[in-house]
């Protein structure tokens, strides 16, 4: 599957209504084939509902969608080529990790030899024989990822795959996702660790209160944001004085970790530097940065907690 061919996922006016509440309202987005696409939004914004509709687990109230070129009303046509982990790993506690994977391998008609291969891939080879109920949260999560990889999927849908993982586990998952994307697999991943998504996702779909507020390239989203000038005085005692000076020049200024974050275009850098010099303040650094995905997300969702 190459980029530029049929999108791996499309949603057209996709809607799910529970009673009076729209969990997803007229959602429109596309996930290009072969890409890593992040799926972000605050809790309750409709991410899991959307994923469940894409997997045929819940029926849309309206609209349509396709997965790997097939309509989501016929999940049997595409699910054999899709791997998924939804809302955390769910397995039989009394069965071992290996037996749990074998149940799913038998159900999907995949060779049982893949089970040990995948246990090794997610670093569970030595604990494959232990009962699932004895696993730590991180191990459960890794088993969930192994289960999602069983079909050697063309499309991998992961809902919060790094929950409960330690930093090295997060790094491993990032590596697995990148390897899969390199081999042509499309990865659609939701996560609340936005810095993680920023590192690996070329595309983003952003939800807020059941509405798609952005769908497109990550760099397009970030570059459309206003840059920030970060100015750091040599001595921290000068922060307030410098902030007052720049504010009086008409710029919006906030103090973040010993530096001033000034909402202004890059052209204002020289003026700010001059203002500091005139006030007798030496800047140890001044730079123009784009907001991070996290800052952009908070800006767009209005959630700055």
């Amino acid at each position: 599957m190459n980029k530029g061919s049929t999108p791996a996922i499309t949603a057209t006016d996709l809607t799910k209504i529970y009673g009076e509440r729209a969990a997803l309202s007229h959602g429109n987005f596309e996930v290009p084939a072969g890409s890593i696409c992040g799926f972000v939004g605050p809790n309750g914004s409709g991410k899991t509902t959307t994923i469940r509709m894409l997997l045929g687990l819940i029926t849309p109230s309206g609209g349509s969608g396709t997965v790997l070129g097939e309509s989501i009303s016929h999940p049997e046509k595409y699910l054999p080529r899709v791997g998924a982990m939804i809302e955390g790993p769910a397995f039989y506690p009394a069965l071992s990790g290996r037996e749990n994977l074998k149940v799913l391998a038998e159900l999907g008609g995949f060779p049982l030899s893949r089970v040990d291969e995948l246990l090794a891939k997610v670093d569970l080879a030595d604990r494959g024989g232990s009962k699932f109920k004895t696993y730590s949260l991180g191990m459960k999560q890794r088993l969930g990822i192994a289960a999602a990889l069983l079909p050697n999927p063309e499309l991998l849908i992961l809902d919060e795959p790094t929950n409960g993982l330690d930093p090295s586990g997060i790094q491993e998952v990032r590596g697995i996702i990148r390897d899969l994307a390199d081999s042509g697999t499309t990865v659609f991943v939701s996560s609340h660790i936005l810095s993680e998504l920023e590192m690996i996702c070329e595309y983003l779909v952003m939800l807020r209160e059941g509405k798609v507020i952005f769908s497109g390239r990550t760099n397009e989203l970030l570059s459309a944001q206003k840059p920030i000038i970060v100015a750091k005085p040599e001595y921290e005692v000068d922060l307030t004085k410098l902030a007052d000076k720049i504010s009086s020049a008409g710029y919006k200024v906030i103090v973040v970790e010993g530096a001033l974050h000034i909402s202004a275009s890059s052209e204002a850098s020289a003026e700010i530097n001059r203002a500091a010099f005139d006030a007798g303040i030496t800047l140890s650094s001044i730079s123009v940065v784009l907001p991070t995905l996290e800052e952009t997300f908070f800006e767009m969702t209005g959630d700055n907690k």
Partner: protein
Amino acid sequence: MIRVVIAELRKLRRPTLLLGTIATVGGLSALFTSIVFLMINSKDGNSKRGQHVGPAELSQATGLVYGFRLVGVFLGIVSLCIFASQTAQEYSLGTLRNLLVRQPSRMKILAGKFISMKIFALVMVLFAGALSIGISFALSGRAKVDTTAWRTSAAMHLLFESTLNIFIATLCFGAFGMILGLLLRSPISAIAVGVLWNLILENILSALITSTGKWLPGVNFSNLGEGGNPDLSYKHSMAISLAYLIIGGAIAALLFKRRDVAN
């Protein structure tokens, strides 16, 4: 469908469930059969509801399966619990979504589950039967029961017929449990409702209004296991049982097919 059956059997053969079930049905089978032979001279009776069955009756061909038939209804209750828990746990554990992602045809999942549990129930019935027959032979000498008639073709026919009837009864109880599991989506609730209904509420209802007895599902399932009796024919029980299971099964299957998997 075969893939679903194989996958389900892997879950059913886990040691805690398989050995636990074998121990339970083995214990029940041994207990009921032993009581018949060891208490053969007891004034309190040695059969259900304090009835007394003597050596003369047990020496007939029916004596071979007497103990086995007594345990039939309890095998049905065990079956109800297993079918209910195996079905409802997919909801309570959240594993149903994994199953449906790997096998999107919900009816195939349901049918595969039922077939695999049928196989499990058959193993359970055959084990209970074999143990009961073995104990019957072992205790016949002590109870002064002549076993000549037990080796006749009539006895073999009765053994086959009883095994089949008990198997049918366990399937009816099991299907009842599965329907409860699908409707209630909680193993504890499904088992509690199923056991309470069959062991307590039906008895209270039949005692209060005698005429209701022949229309109650548990009474009819049990009667199938016993091969029918003069007050309640086998045909009647089969028709009532099928009616309950077809209507209940259709409702549960429809809900299973249509309901969103949102947990």
